[in-house]
């Protein structure tokens, strides 16, 4: 696959001298043609700034940005083959839905007949044919979202940037638009760069995710990798739910650490290359709530007592207290023949090899 966007050594700071705020530091990133790429992070992590730099609304302080092999730093947003779906949609309130969608093509001086045909095609793509003559104020939020998408897709950009486009929609509509977006991306083959703070949205839609925090990319990879092998505590905490355990190192051999579990049993976990704890010190280890299983009391790796249970429909979260008083959340799928254990019940815990991971703090 060819490289659509190449970012090398990109920095961005706002302000001067001591008061300068470093929004992005040393970003290196390549995004492949036709990829659904997501920038994920909490608000203020720099993901929107990075998107605005790609769009051309901001210039990087240092570093290079190439789109389809061509250096674009210094080119305005009107000179880049990129369109944006804005968080607020930014639909032109004085233009009809059709005029909004056709605006980009009109500015590119396409012939009237071509504009008309493309607008009709886009209206069909986002299923808004019946609304062509409405004003943005006369359609619902979800419909405005579709129009914003159609408007950005109409000039057939090489890259579509989406800045938290679903954040204003309610849950059901958001789910609907998630699959809609994925469908549009597959149908058009356009490279999507999607910005979100919603980890679930990122996991379900993306080909690859870049997890960002404080202006840096912490981890870059496919959703499965980000979820199953987070590189540090921040990523593990931000993506999905995780149990953090503070465990003592009993021995170290060949990139693996033997850890002492609460209750005295031992288990081994792979050590990331970045850390080398000494024997006897404590490290942070994680187990995902769904990767541990309950066993009868006395069996399994660890022993625990049920403190409370929270019902979530498809599953129940059991809040447990381990032998050494550390908390642990266990996710258990609900089945009619297996009622969830009552608070006060003693049970054992077991987990598959590989579920226990040591993380950098």
């Amino acid at each position, binding site marked *: 696959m060819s490289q659509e966007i190449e970012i090398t050594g990109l920095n961005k700071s706002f302000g001067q001298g001591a008061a300068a705020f470093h929004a992005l530091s040393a970003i290196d990133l390549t995004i492949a043609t036709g990829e659904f790429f997501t920038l994920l992070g909490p608000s203020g992590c720099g993901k929107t700034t990075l998107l605005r730099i790609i769009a051309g609304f901001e210039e990087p302080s240092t570093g290079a940005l190439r789109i389809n092999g061509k250096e674009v730093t210094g080119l305005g*947003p009107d000179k880049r083959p990129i369109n944006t779906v804005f968080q607020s949609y930014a639909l032109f*309130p004085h233009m009809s839905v059709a005029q909004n969608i056709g605006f980009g093509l009109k500015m590119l001086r396409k012939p009237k007949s071509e504009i008309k045909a493309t607008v009709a095609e886009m209206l069909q793509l986002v299923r808004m044919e019946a609304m062509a003559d409405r004003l943005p104020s006369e359609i619902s939020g979800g419909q405005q979202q579709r129009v914003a998408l159609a408007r950005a897709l109409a000039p057939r950009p090489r890259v579509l940037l989406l800045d938290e486009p679903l954040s204003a929609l309610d849950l059901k509509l958001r789910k609907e638009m998630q699959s809609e977006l994925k469908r549009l991306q597959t149908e058009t083959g356009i490279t999507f760069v999607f910005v979100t703070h919603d980890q679930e949205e990122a996991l379900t839609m993306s080909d690859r995710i870049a997890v960002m925090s404080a202006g840096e990319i912490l981890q870059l990879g496919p959703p499965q990798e980000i979820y199953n092998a987070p590189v540090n505590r921040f990523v593990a905490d931000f993506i999905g739910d995780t149990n953090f355990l503070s465990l003592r190192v009993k021995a170290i051999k060949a990139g693996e650490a033997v850890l002492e579990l609460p209750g005295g049993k031992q288990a081994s976990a792979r050590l990331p290359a970045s850390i080398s704890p000494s024997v006897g010190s404590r490290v942070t280890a994680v187990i995902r709530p769904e990767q541990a299983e309950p066993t009868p009391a006395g069996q399994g790796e660890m022993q625990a007592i049920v403190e409370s249970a929270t019902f979530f429909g498809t599953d129940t979260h059991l809040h447990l207290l381990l032998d050494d008083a550390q908390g642990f959340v266990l996710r258990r799928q609900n089945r009619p023949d297996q009622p969830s254990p009552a608070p006060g019940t003693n049970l054992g815990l077991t987990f598959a090899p590989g579920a226990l991971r040591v993380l950098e703090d």
Partner: protein
Amino acid sequence: MRGHGWKWLLCTPALIVLVLAASGPLLIVAVYSFLSPGNMGGVVWEFSLEAWFRVFFRRDIFEPDQVAWNTAHLQVFWRSIWLSLQTTFICAFLGFPTAWFIATRPRHTRTIWLFLITIPFWTNLLIRTFAIQEMIRNNGTINAVLIWTGVIDSPIQMMFSEFAVLLGMAYVFLPLMVLPLYAAMEKMDFSLVEAGYDLYASRLNVLWHIILPQVKPGFIAGSILVFIPAIGAYVTPRILGGGRTMMLGNLIALQFGQGRNWPLGAALALLMLVMVVGALIFYLRVVGRSDGVRRG
């Protein structure tokens, strides 16, 4: 639906002021325009259409039956409309970048700029007008500087011309254009501008297709606020324009003063009212028709 019957009573103080200060005097003016002039000013209670007739026509002094258009009056009407239109246009042209500048400052400094815009209002209009006179008269500041630097040999005649009146009126009415324009821009969603650039619009296209339609309500309000007082301006044309550039306000004042023809003055004043209301209706029909304003 209880207790709604008496709520209109809350309007009575305002209604009393409106009746006493606006409708009452207007009624008196309307009645006066159909009476005959007194010799020493005032009116004689005798019905007459002479005043309305003389607004448009004049009689030959020696042959009262010979009637001609009153070209002097028509000229004043035309000049008032034309100068007011130009003033409105100049204010819009200068006011737009000013308002844009203020609206794009950081929030806490905008107040300072708005405050600076309103400073001219603190000084009496007469004094400000005399100050302009001081700048542009033959041996005033501008001419003195130009002669001293050797750019010109003899002073440029700027006083007592339509240019002087335009300059004065544009200066006086500029804040009335800037403030509503600023209010419209401040409400504007600036991500629309970014969306425009993103969709390949040039700066000019963004201005024309996106910013102007958004701030149109401000232009409409500003134009009305400038045009209406401009068409009735009195002080500025009187001081800067002299007798050669008389405007409607001066003509009306003349009838109530030296002219000693109150009915004619009253008829002219009513005519001006009709012209302004007519212009307003026409303007709102033509300019205000599009979606931006209808949905405000």
